[in-house]
Structure formats: structure tokens, C-alpha cells
């Protein structure tokens, strides 16, 4: 390809252009560099489709599979990895003896489902305090926040397996009186993709507007 001969601008400034023997390798190099740049950008986009515009959290470059687990929801129905397939899920781990952060976050999750186009991601409240959060207690608690939030808990071993997969930590902290305790727990919302993999995290402070915008973009609702 004779770039100088074909390009009107180069022809006009012919005296400044390189002889064809040197222009050709340079043009090839430029095209190759451009192509490499575009290819790189596409690769980056393919790995992290929403990271560029996410305002409230992080999307994992490589979604992380969740190990099998067997828990129950507030109605006593099985809640396993199968229940995570085929839909996006937003999960929050907490406990009902929690006066501030948990009800605040569940209120936010309720508002999110109302804000997002349907079908909105499934909203799951994972209780890490199964001793106190019996099925009945959990049912009364989540129903207070509307039908959209599912309460889930179960045996400690199964709970711990799921928490490990999700990257969730919790710790019982003894209270002032005998038998009383509180639970420190991960504060982030966990985003799970329709292949039952951890797709990302939304750390606090949680803002309804930015979360809704991010979820609309990622989860395509």
C-alpha cells in the first residue's frame, strides 16, 4: 500500500512525507498498534463489562463459583445452589437481633425491588444467627419488609460453607449479660449471577439511586 499516493493530505504535503520505502513499515506498525489497542480494550470490556460505570461496588473480573450447600428459607422450603440459578440475586448476611444496620439494609433491599424494572434480582437475607433466628422468627422478620425478601438460614455447617463461598465473615460477640450476644458480620451486599457464582460486592454506605443504576446495568433489569 502506497499511503502517500492515496492519501490526499499526504500528497498535499508531499515534501514533508517519508519516501514510500519507509512509510510502508510505519503505516503497518501504526495499524497494528491501533488494532492491538482496540483488541485490548475489547478484551478488558469482556472481562469486566460494567466495571467502568459502576458507582457503588465492584464486579469480579472472574465470577467465583459457589460450593453446594443446603439451607432452608422462612417457609421451610429448601434453599440450595439450585435456587440461585437462572436469576440474579442480591444477598445480605445479618441477624434479626440487630437494631440498626440489618433493618436499614433490608429496607433498602425492599426499596430496590420497587425501584428496579421487573424481574428485579432476587433479594435474600441470610441469617448467620440460626440459634435465635428460628424459621418463625425469620418469617415474621422478612415479611415486615414485603414479599420480595427471602429469609434463609440453616445448620451452622451449611451456613459456614455458603459464607466461605460468598466471602462473608461473621463473629459472635458476647453481650453485657449472660447468654446475650451480638454478631459482627460482613456489611457488603453480595451480587450472585444466574450461574450461581459470586459476581460482585456492594460495600456500604449503600445509596438507593446508585445501587439501582448499577444493578440495572449489570443485571440487565
Amino acid at each position, binding site marked *: 500500500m502506497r499511503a502517500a499516493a492515496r492519501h490526499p493530505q499526504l500528497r498535499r504535503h508531499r515534501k514533508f512525507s517519508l519516501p514510500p520505502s519507509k512509510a510502508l513499515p510505519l503505516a503497518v506498525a501504526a495499524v497494528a498498534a491501533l488494532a492491538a489497542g482496540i483488541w485490548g480494550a475489547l478484551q478488558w470490556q469482556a472481562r469486566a463489562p460494567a466495571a467502568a460505570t459502576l458507582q457503588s461496588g465492584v464486579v469480579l473480573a472472574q465470577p467465583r463459583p459457589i460450593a453446594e450447600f443446603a439451607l432452608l428459607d422462612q417457609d421451610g422450603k429448601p434453599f440450595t445452589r439450585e435456587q440461585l440459578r437462572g436469576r440474579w440475586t442480591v444477598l445480605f448476611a*445479618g441477624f*434479626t*437481633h*440487630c*437494631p*440498626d*444496620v440489618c*433493618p*436499614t439494609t433490608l*429496607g*433498602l433491599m*425492599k*426499596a430496590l425491588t420497587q425501584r428496579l424494572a421487573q424481574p428485579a434480582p432476587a433479594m435474600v437475607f441470610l441469617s448467620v444467627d440460626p440459634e435465635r433466628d428460628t424459621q418463625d*422468627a425469620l418469617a*415474621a*422478620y*422478612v*415479611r*415486615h*419488609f414485603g414479599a420480595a425478601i427471602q429469609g434463609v438460614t440453616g445448620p451452622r455447617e451449611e451456613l459456614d460453607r455458603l459464607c466461605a463461598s460468598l466471602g462473608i*465473615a461473621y*463473629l459472635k*460477640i458476647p453481650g453485657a449479660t449472660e447468654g446475650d450476644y*451480638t454478631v*459482627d*458480620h*460482613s*456489611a*457488603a451486599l453480595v451480587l450472585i449471577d444466574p450461574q450461581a457464582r459470586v459476581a460482585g460486592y456492594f*460495600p*456500604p*454506605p449503600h445509596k*438507593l439511586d446508585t445501587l439501582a443504576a448499577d444493578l440495572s446495568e449489570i443485571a440487565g433489569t
Partner: protein
Amino acid sequence: MRINWPAAVLALGLSAPAGACPGLEVEEPWIREAPPGAMMTAAYARLRNAGDRLLRIDGGFAANFASAELHRSIVENGISRMVHGEPLELLPGATGALAPGSWHLMLLRPSRPLKAGEQVAVALKCGRQAKEFVFTVKAAQE
């Protein structure tokens, strides 16, 4: 000695002592309507010290609740925790807040479920004094 604050307040007729927590003012005081059966909830308000002395709020008590404690929710290394035993200090002229995800008055063991719209007397304690305000129960959204 453990002071039974509600009883102490009643005994002293502390509803309007001129000197209690001088200058402490609240705005938009509210209590989160708790899910049925919940053993606890929280009280929130914007605070202001209109007085000329440092105020150290270190607790409180509330009608219809067995006890109340001043707590602060914090996030540390991604973990949500509760800090207690730390007073909320307001310099003269300063504002502060009891707000979701931050400082709050944790209210424990309600005598009965409280519904949105109900009003509850809540006293904020500054050392050995307490000042009472009327808080409104709200179904919190956001």
C-alpha cells in the same frame, strides 16, 4: 449501683428540670417500627448543642422498652460492628446525629409492639442527667 432510670426520672419529676443536659435539642426524632416479634429497634434524631458547655450523651431510656443503650454502628475491614460504651460528644454550637448506620439509641425488649404513628417518650442521658423528648414511630424506608 445500677440506676433504674425510668423510675429515677419519675421519682425526680425529671420531665422538665431546667438544668438537665442544658442546650440539648433534637430534630425529627423517630423510632424505627420493628418487625413483629423483634426484641429490639433503634431511635434516631438530629442533635444540636445550643448550650455553652460540652454535652456527653452516653445513653438513654424509653417508655415501652426495658432498656436503651447508646451504640454506634461502624464498618471496619468490611465488617459491620457495634461499638458501645463510647459517649457522643457535642461541643457548644455543634450538631450531630443519631442516624441509621451510625450512632443510635438501641431500644431493647419492647413491652408491646409499637406501630407507626405512635409517640414514645425517650430520654437522652448526659451523665447523671437526662432530657426527655417525644419520638415518633415510623415505618422506615431508606
